[in-house]
Each structure stands twice: as structure tokens, then as C-alpha cells.
């Protein structure tokens, strides 16, 4: 869907360009990175630092806002403006900032506990409003900073300190949740795939509106190996689907190529290419206004990672909250130039 109200469609349209050539080093702060050895956060940090220079925007116009959790340390390690705020509330702070400052490139860094549990309400509303911010959701399916309790994305039955007999909670599927919240950009990627991660971040930054990028990220201390099947060469090849807009969805090893087809009930299924006609293959359309296609893809696999769908599920252009709010302000000022004395005096006065 494209609604043309004269608003820019590029997420960075109003962000000033950098006057100089920047490198990853320019985006690196003097703070020592203190995540655990082997943490997936390192890979994401490296990817973000590495790809930001290519955006060509001014470093001082970049802001990272985080809540609480391991991932929330992220802003300290970026040599940009940043705020390490409180648990779950980063989207609210980013909303106020992005609404008042169209010249900023605003990022929210959150995790499965921060963004989906304590801050779930803010996350869905930020997506619904379509504020021009990019949200990186580090999903390691565990609480790390509080030392190993189950999270809203943990497997059912998972034994943790707070669930010695196994968790009985049903996990969220963050991509399904975001689509249900009317998100205009939803993607999933892996900490272990630098190229795909970078490509996804690039698309998210370019999107005008709220972008949600779920990043499967390994916690080596409290949930080590949660995504190992996606790191094993053979398993990865067998399970991983990378979505590409306008292309038939196919995946799998050479000898056993698979594709996504629609069954007689209209549901998406994985089928061996050898067993279906080419025209039966579902072609990915990220720009469809109707979310049912993207939603169906988000349900393919899911918690058990078999298959694992990655890439951009949905990317539609719709007016952002902040563009419209600012337009109302400038329109009002144009129609009625501000006159404080007139306002305070009003129409019903008497003189003594």
C-alpha cells in the first residue's frame, strides 16, 4: 500500500549528510565492551558499527535508545548520542524524540524481556503508530542480566531458575506479534550471519516508519546453543529460508530443494521441489497491504526453527505518526500565526 500525502518515504530523508567519510571506528566509543565472551551481541555491534558509515549521515544525528537488559548496554558502545533508559520504556522515549526531531536517525535496542515482556505495550503501540524509528529486538529467549529466568520467547517446558519444573508459558512469536500490531516493516535475521544482518539493517534504516528487526542472538551463559541448528552448515541449509521480495520462496540443499506452497486449505506448507510444479510455488510479496501473507510466513516454523524464515516479511509505505503530527503543527502555524497575547486575552474580557 502506498499512500501519498507528500511525506518522504526514505527513513533518513531529513537527516543531514555527514561532511566527511566515516568508518566503523568513528562510531566506536571509548567504553570497553563488557558483554560475556561469545555473546551474540558482539556480532550485532560490529555489524551496526560497520554499516552505519555507508548511510552517509552525520554521526551526531544518530541516536541509540535502550531500556534495561544485556542488549541495553549497546548505546554506551556507540560514539553517537545515546540513552540507556529504564526497563521496557525505550520506545516511548524514542517516540518523543523522533516526533520532535525529524533530523535524527533514531534506533531502539531492546531484548525479548525488555521489549516483549515489561515493555510489550510500548512496542506494539510504537509499531501501530508507525513512528520513524528502527527497533532491534535481540531475541536470545532468556533473561540474561537477571541471570537466567525464562522469557516471553523461551521454549515451553524450559527449565530455568524460576521454572525448576519447566516453563508452562506459551512463547510469543515476535514477527507474528509485530504484524498483528500493524507494523509497516518486519524482518528477522541472525547474529551469526553478518551479511544477512547487514542487509536487513540497511533495509530497516531506509524504511520510513517503525521498523522491527528480530535478531536471533545466542546467550552463551544462560541459553547457549538455542540457535545452534542455524549455525550447523547442513542443518542451516536444510532449515533456513531467506525471503526475497518478488521471488518464489525456495530453500534447502541442492539434492533436496524445497519450496513454499499453499495447500488445499490455503495454508502455507513446505514441499519438495521435486514433488510440486514450479507455478505452485508461493512468490514473496513484502509490499502487500494485507498482512495475511506475511503472517502465514511468520507461522511457518517459528519456535522450533524448522524451517526458519528470515528476511523482510513486510515492508509497506504508510504515513508515519511523526510526519503527520509535524504536518499538523506547521499547517496550524501557517493558518494561524502564534500570538500569545491574543491567546491569553481571549474573546471575553472586561476592563477595570
Amino acid at each position, binding site marked *: 500500500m502506498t499512500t501519498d500525502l507528500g511525506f518522504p518515504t526514505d527513513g533518513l530523508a531529513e537527516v543531514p549528510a555527514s561532511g566527511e567519510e566515516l568508518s566503523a571506528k568513528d562510531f566506536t566509543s571509548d567504553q570497553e565492551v563488557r558483554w560475556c565472551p561469545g555473546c551474540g551481541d558482539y556480532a550485532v555491534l560490529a555489524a551496526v558499527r560497520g554499516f552505519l558509515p555507508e548511510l552517509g549521515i552525520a554521526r551526531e544525528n544518530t541516536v541509540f535508545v535502550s531500556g534495561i537488559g544485556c542488549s541495553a548496554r549497546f548505546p554506551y558502545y556507540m*560514539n553517537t*548520542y545515546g540513552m540507556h533508559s529504564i526497563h521496557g520504556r525505550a520506545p516511548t522515549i524514542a517516540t518523543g524524540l523522533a516526533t*520532535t526531531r525529524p533530523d535524527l536517525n533514531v534506533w531502539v535496542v531492546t531484548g525479548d524481556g525488555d521489549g516483549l515482556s515489561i515493555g510489550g505495550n510500548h512496542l506494539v503501540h510504537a509499531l501501530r503508530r508507525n513512528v520513524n524509528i528502527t527497533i532491534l529486538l535481540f531475541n536470545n529467549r532468556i533473561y540474561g542480566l537477571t541471570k537466567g529466568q525464562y522469557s516471553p520467547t523461551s521454549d515451553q517446558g524450559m527449565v530455568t531458575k524460576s521454572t525448576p519444573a519447566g516453563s508452562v508459558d506459551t512463547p510469543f512469536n515476535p514477527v507474528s506479534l509485530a504484524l498483528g500490531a500493524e507494523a509497516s516493516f518486519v524482518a528477522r535475521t541472525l547474529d551469526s550471519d553478518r551479511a544477512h544482518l547487514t542487509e536487513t539493517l540497511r533495509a530497516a534504516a531506509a524504511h520510513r516508519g517503525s521498523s522491527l528487526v528480530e535478531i536471533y542472538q545466542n546467550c552463551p551463559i544462560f541459553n547457549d546453543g538455542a540457535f545452534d541448528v542455524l549455525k550447523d552448515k547442513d542443518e542451516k541449509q536444510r532449515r533456513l529460508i531467506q525471503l526475497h521480495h518478488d521471488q518464489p520462496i525456495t530453500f534447502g540443499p541442492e539434492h533436496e530443494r524445497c519450496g513454499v506452497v499453499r495447500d488445499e486449505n490455503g495454508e502455507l506448507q513446505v514441499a519438495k521441489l521435486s514433488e510440486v510444479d514450479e507455478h505452485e510455488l508461493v512468490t514473496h510479496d513484502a509490499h502487500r497491504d494485507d498482512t495475511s501473507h506475511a503472517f502465514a510466513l511468520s507461522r511457518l516454523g517459528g519456535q522450533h526453527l524448522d524451517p526458519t524464515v528470515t528476511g523482510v516479511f513486510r515492508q509497506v509505505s504508510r504515513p508515519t505518526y511523526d510526519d503527520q503530527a509535524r504536518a499538523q503543527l506547521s499547517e496550524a502555524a501557517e493558518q494561524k500565526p502564534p500570538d500569545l497575547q491574543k491567546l*491569553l486575552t481571549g474573546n471575553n474580557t*472586561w476592563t*477595570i
Partner: protein
Amino acid sequence: MVATNGQRPAGQAESGPDEQADTPRKANRVVIRFAGDSGDGMQLTGDRFTSEAAAFGNDLATLPNYPAEIRAPAGTLPGVSSFQLHFADYDILTPGDRPDVLVAMNPAALKANLGDLSDGATVVVNTDEFTKRNLKKVGYETSPLDSAELDRFTVHRVAMSELTKGAVAETGLTRKEAERCKNMFALGLLSWMYSRPTEDTERFLREKFAGKPQVAEANVLAFRAGWNYGETTESFAVTYEVAAASLPEGTYRQVTGNLALAYGLVGAGQRSELPVFLGSYPITPASDVLHEMAKHKNFGVTTFQAEDEIAGVGAALGASFGGSLGVTTTSGPGLALKSETIGLAVALELPLLVCDIQRGGPSTGLPTKTEQADLLQALYGRNGESPVAVLAPRSPADCFDIAMEAARIALTYRTPVLLLSDGATANGSEPWLVPDVNELPDLRVSFASEANAPDGSGEFWPYVRDPETLARDWAVPGTPGLEHRVGGLEKVDGKGSISYDPDNHDEMVRLRQRKIDGVEVPEMPVDDPSGRARVLVLGWGSSYGPIGAACRRVRHRGMEIAQAHLRYLNPMPPNLGEVLAAYDRVIVPEMNTGQLAMLLRSRYLVDARSYTKVAGLPFQAEELENVLSDVVQGSEL
């Protein structure tokens, strides 16, 4: 209308020989209460009468009182809505204790308000609503109109519904629609009784119903019918006149507290030359500030109706980080939800205005009733040592000045400021001497634009402070070379990097406290006309009116009493200790169970005595007069 039973007239006259029926009598002040079902339009009626009084030049004060339910069951006691108005030919301080006139649109309104009337008051009732069914709803076996219960009053029985229907018949409205105009009949009648100007009301009605000319016409006809009824009916033999008040010279308008607060916030944005960002979530009685602010986008005011209270303040803080004047408005339960974010603002040391329009608590409490029981929540309702500045307006019009003051402190000291209004102040109204905008304080701030590290490293350190105010340098995103990170973790002063060092934390806690303690606030004036008073009455917030009126009465009775009022609750005025020590007795009336008194006792080692009431309604001047008189005469409290 005359005091036929030889008791009090329907206005409080200073003196006066009996006058002819066609000559208006003089009264100095009158208290009128319009009461009816919540669907009867009593708030609108009261509001219009207020505008008429204001236009005439009376001083006035109002007290709306309505149920939390939008439409409680019709005709029941919980559904009664009322609007009280006090107008006078001199400067008055309260909406009045006891009505001189009660307009009761149904039996419930009569029953709910009768107890507040003193002997000799005038009661105007809509007899059409005194049906068996309606009487039964409120537990009347027989009509009070036929009993001795009303003998103490001058009662006017007016068939308002039928008279209204007759008057508007020509407009062709349905009977139901026609009857809805009866509040304007009542307004017309009262306008005649008190010789009020009528042109503005007619104009108002035509404007309000501009899209429905038939309804506009009907309301005007009903209004005129009420007026004519007074003029032609013999039972209303006398009209009253309350002359214009002599207030300081200038241009006046009527404002409610919430309106004045919104104007103060808009004004603060203009005078600071910063965009204003209001993040808010609907809550009674604060929502009107959001509604008002939403109208002023042309002043660079962004209003954001958030998903919850936390998001409201979070977005405001995010806007402040970006260089806007971040504001959030709420009431007590919402303030509780915002606590953690206010604590973050304390740690970030960013400007933030938090306006709490207090209501009855705890929990949901009494959403539409007033209370001032959030003082300790405002001061201490956060984790850790988390000092903020706290201010409280003393009247509806004072909300404007307090909002500007709150902005000054927030911007100068880079701190959250809590502003404690309350339901009575928010919805009450009074005349406001419109300020000259050129004389409003200059609130401009300068953002950091260059490196400030004292070690000459050429870096920007976010916690480098102004040595006088202790305010930190405020560098907004987009400023090249000043990229920095702030957060809720403890940090080293100056550089701002995270620190878990024990001594550093101890120093930072004390530093944040020193900054707030050092906020410059003016001395507190004391009203002690003779200079010989031995008793001081000290209040804060909306009790200013009733306390002031009570002090006048105490003095009128030949006794001496001093009055002082706190608008600055943190830090408190520099002369407060001295003032407290100068009197033998200190009385602190509060609409809570003694929160300010507790603070005064602990901080100043003074034997401050509380007089408290938490009934959801403002103090009455009369009750305070009695309490204070007793204290002056030596009684213990």
C-alpha cells in the same frame, strides 16, 4: 424574591431600607448553586451564569461538583451534578460555603443539597420533576414541597419543564428535545433575579448551536421565557443587584485552573523559545489540559496521547533529551505510574514538567473530587534518593504563574519539576488579570555547543556543571562533536561515565540534593496586618481561598491572626523557618491527614498543628473561621 420570613435575603446585603418592588436591592455577595441530574446541563448553566457575572465585572469563584459516572441513573442521588458560584462586589477568595440560592431541578437535587443551606435561603424548584416516581427514587414518602421541611426557606415552585415546553413549542422540537432546554429557563430566571446582562448568553447559545438553528432558537426562547417569568410573576417581587467589584486596574478574563495551566505551558514554550511536547494519558481531572493544549499546535505545541501514563512521561522525557520542553499531565494514580521515569529524569538531569491534578485517593479513589494528598508522593514517591522541585498553585489563575515558574526551574536547573494542582483548582474559575506577554519572564536557555572537558581534552562531558546552579550542560543530539551517552546508572560527575564506586555514589546523591536545595525561590510573604498576631495559619495549594476568607472573618471578629501560604514546597522558601519561629502557634489546614505538617515538624522542629479534612470537597471558610477563632482564643487543636 424577598426575605418574606424576615430572615436572610437571597443575597447578603450590607444594609438598606425596604425598596420598591421594581428597584433592585443591593447585595454585596451572593452564592448560587445550580443542581440537577447529570444530564440536566447544570455545569453549562453555571458556566454561563459565571460568564454573565464576569462580564458584569463582579469578582467570582466557582465550584463544580459532579459524579464520576458520565450518566448515573437519572433522578438518583448519585446522579446529582451541581455548580456553585460566588460573585461579589469585592475581591472574594472562595466559591462560598452555603448557598443563598439553590436551584433544584429534581427531588434528588433538592435532597442532596438541602443540608448545605442556611435558614432563610431561597430555593427554586422545578415542580414538574416532583412526581411520585422521582420522589420514591430518593426515598421521599411525600413531596417535601408539601411538608414543613422547607419552612425555613423561601421556596419558589416553578413548573419549569412545562413552561419551557410551552415557550419553545413554535420551534417544532420534539417534547423531549424541548424539555432539554429547561436549564436555560432556569438560567433566564436567575439572570433576571440578579439583574445580569443577557446579550452574551443569547450570542453564546446561537454560536454553540450554530449547526442546529432550531435548537439554538429553542434555547434562546427558553432563556427569555425564564427571564420573563421572573419579571411577570408576582412571587418574584424583588431583584437583586451585585455591583462590579473594585479589583486592580487592567483587562480581566475568566479562567479555570486547567485553562490557566495550559496557557502557562504554552507561554513557557513561547518565552523559552522551545517547542513544547506534552505526553499525556486521559485521566480525570487532568484531561482538560491535554484537550486545551491540543488546540495550540500553532504555538509549536505537540500533544501526544500515549498508550499509558508511562509512555506519556517517557515520550516527554525523550522530547526533552532532544531539546524540547517536555511536559506530562496526570492525576495521582498516573503519577504513581510515572515514578520510575521521573527518577530517570532525576538521574539524566533533564528538564521535565510533571503536572499532577490531584484527586481523592488512594487507588481510583474519588476521581471527580478534590484532595491534596499527593504531596509526599510528589516529594518522595520514587526509589532511591530522588529529589525534585515541587510547586503548587494557590488558585485557578495562579496556575498560569506556577506553570511558568515550574518551567523556569526545570530549564534553569535541568530537573524534573512536579506541579501539584487539584480538582478544585483545576475546575474552579476566577477572574484573571491578563498579563502583558512582554513582561513575562525570559525563559531562554543555551544549549551546549562546544567541548567542555575541564582537562582540556577537547571532549564533551555531559555532567560538567554551572558552578552556581549546579545545572549540567545540555547538549542536544545533532550537535557535532558533543556525542555522549546518558542513562539511569550511577555516573561520575563531570565525565558522566558509569561508576559503581561507593564514595562517588555518596557524593552524587548529595550533589543532586544540593542542586534542588539550591533552587532559588522567593521569600514567602506573611499577611499579618497588625503585626501582633500570635497564631500563624500556614497552608499550601488550593486551600488558600478558604484560609484567607477565614482569616478575614477571624479579624472581623476582632482577633489577630497571620496567614502565609506555600507555593514552593521543595525547596521551601528561605524565610520559612524564621516565619514559623516568629509565632506562638502554627496551624496547618490540609486536605490530607497532615502531610505538610509532618514535613514542617521534622524540618523545622516546630510544633505545627494539623487541621485536616479529606472529604473530597474544599474547606469551608466558616469551618476554618471557627477552628482558627478557637485557636486564637487559646484552645488546643
